[in-house]
């Protein structure tokens, strides 16, 4: 029995890769339109999606794909899970938008709908709500993608004996665009699945 990668999703500014297959390419859309294209591709019908910030939107879309590919529904409560992700710019995209609402004394209005997204871990809450994950979650900010850091953080999560599945990865949406690697790990003896290892995480991230 070892930790295996059940499925993974890679989203960048120009493509979506799901379990090694290119499933969608970006035809020069800006980030907002690209996110809409991915939403349409997933055939997701989720009104809450439209209220989310961009980090949550992309995270929810990636989660939708990996959960579906891993064979999980979003109807049943899931308690033997954990969420563990990282990025480099935290919630800077939202922090800047929120800051603009309190910049001028004449138009001072600290918008609640922006404020609620001024923490990067909110994306994990949105994913947990969508997939009924009643679980611990952790979100780390790291200077750049690090397979070692993600691997070690998830190994720590597995110290909790009740955890069987972990959804984890790198969720970066900001000035530099969109850079996502999200995967589901399971304790499994299925030899057909990739091992959860630093080398494999690095390869999935770098795969073109």
């Amino acid at each position, binding site marked *: 029995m070892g930790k295996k990668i059940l499925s993974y999703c890679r989203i960048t500014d120009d493509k979506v890769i799901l379990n090694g297959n290119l499933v969608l390419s970006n035809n020069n859309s800006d980030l*907002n339109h690209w*996110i*809409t294209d991915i*939403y349409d591709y997933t055939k997701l019908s989720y*009104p*809450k999606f*439209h*209220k989310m*910030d961009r980090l949550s939107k992309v995270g929810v879309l990636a989660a939708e794909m990996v959960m579906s590919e891993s064979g999980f529904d979003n109807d049943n409560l899931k308690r033997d899970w954990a969420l563990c992700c990282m990025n480099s710019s935290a919630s800077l995209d939202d922090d800047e938008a929120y800051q603009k609402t309190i910049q001028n004394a004449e138009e001072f*209005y600290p*918008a*609640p*709908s*922006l404020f*609620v997204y001024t923490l990067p871990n909110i994306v994990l809450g949105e994913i947990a709500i969508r997939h009924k994950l009643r679980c611990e979650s952790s979100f780390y900010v790291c200077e750049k993608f690090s397979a070692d850091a993600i691997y070690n953080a998830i190994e720590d999560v597995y110290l909790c004996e009740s955890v069987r599945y972990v959804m984890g990865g790198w969720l970066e949406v900001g000035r530099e665009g969109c850079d996502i690697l999200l995967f589901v790990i399971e304790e499994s003896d299925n030899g057909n699945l990739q091992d959860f290892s630093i080398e494999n995480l690095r390869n999935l991230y770098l795969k073109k």
Partner: protein
Amino acid sequence: MEQLIEELKQEIINALNLEDMTLADIDENAPLFGEGLCLDSIDALELIVLMDKKYGIKLKTAAEGKEIFKSVKVMAEYIASHRTK
């Protein structure tokens, strides 16, 4: 009334940052909370501020908001009869 409903839809899109939605995506008869747009308490705050800033309507109680925010159409009817701006 139709014009006010369309204007209100756009105001809601702006206030709630529903950037990828169009006016046609919002059904004026659909419930705003629970179903339809699936709004929550944070969004209710934004709608209360919108009513005040744009239409000069100050809601006094939460119960009042519950009635007024049933749908875009109900909101528009209330605005039409109570607006001070």
